[in-house]
């Protein structure tokens, strides 16, 4: 069973890692943030599977922290994107 969970963890991780190609290609900032978001969710899933496979109980707490702060970077992105737009609008007068 541990082998299966470990394998599933690796599979999920490998899958979302391929999704990181979107960070490379873009083209927009939004696409890049999406890839990071997918990696966040996938990372939480992989972490849970890893913790279950190795019997490391603390892994769940790490996953909880990650899930709690998952939105944080994206919110910062959205705020600065809208600030930048407001600046541009102000520059144009």
């Amino acid at each position, binding site marked *: 069973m541990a082998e299966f969970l470990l394998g599933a963890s690796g599979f999920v991780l490998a899958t979302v890692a391929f*999704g990181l190609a979107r960070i490379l290609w873009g083209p927009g*900032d939004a696409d890049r*943030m*999406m890839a990071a*978001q997918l990696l966040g969710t996938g990372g939480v899933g992989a972490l*849970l599977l890893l913790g279950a496979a190795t019997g490391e109980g603390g892994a769940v707490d790490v996953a909880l922290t990650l899930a709690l702060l*998952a*939105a944080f970077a994206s919110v910062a992105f959205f705020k600065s994107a809208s600030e930048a737009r407001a600046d541009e609008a102000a520059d144009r007068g």
Partner: protein
Amino acid sequence: MSLADLFTVVAVSAGAVFFLAGTVGLLRFPDALTRLHALTKADNLGLGLVVLGLLPRVDGVLGGLKLVAIWLLALLAGAAVSQLIARAARSPGPRG
């Protein structure tokens, strides 16, 4: 293999397939909004199924609560972030 183990295998495998689907959508769909669609559906379901599969294996109520809380947090974050990203992607500007 016990019934609980079988349940874990089936649910976790299904979750992994959803993660795969989400990634394929993120890589293959033509524009930001369709990619977002693929992403949010797939990663919420994927994580949900993984959590579901692991539930029979936790010891104690607290462990189960934490697992469910992780999924609910991911749902909330996913819903909020996809709206924010969609708004950023749709608004006019040199970079979407």
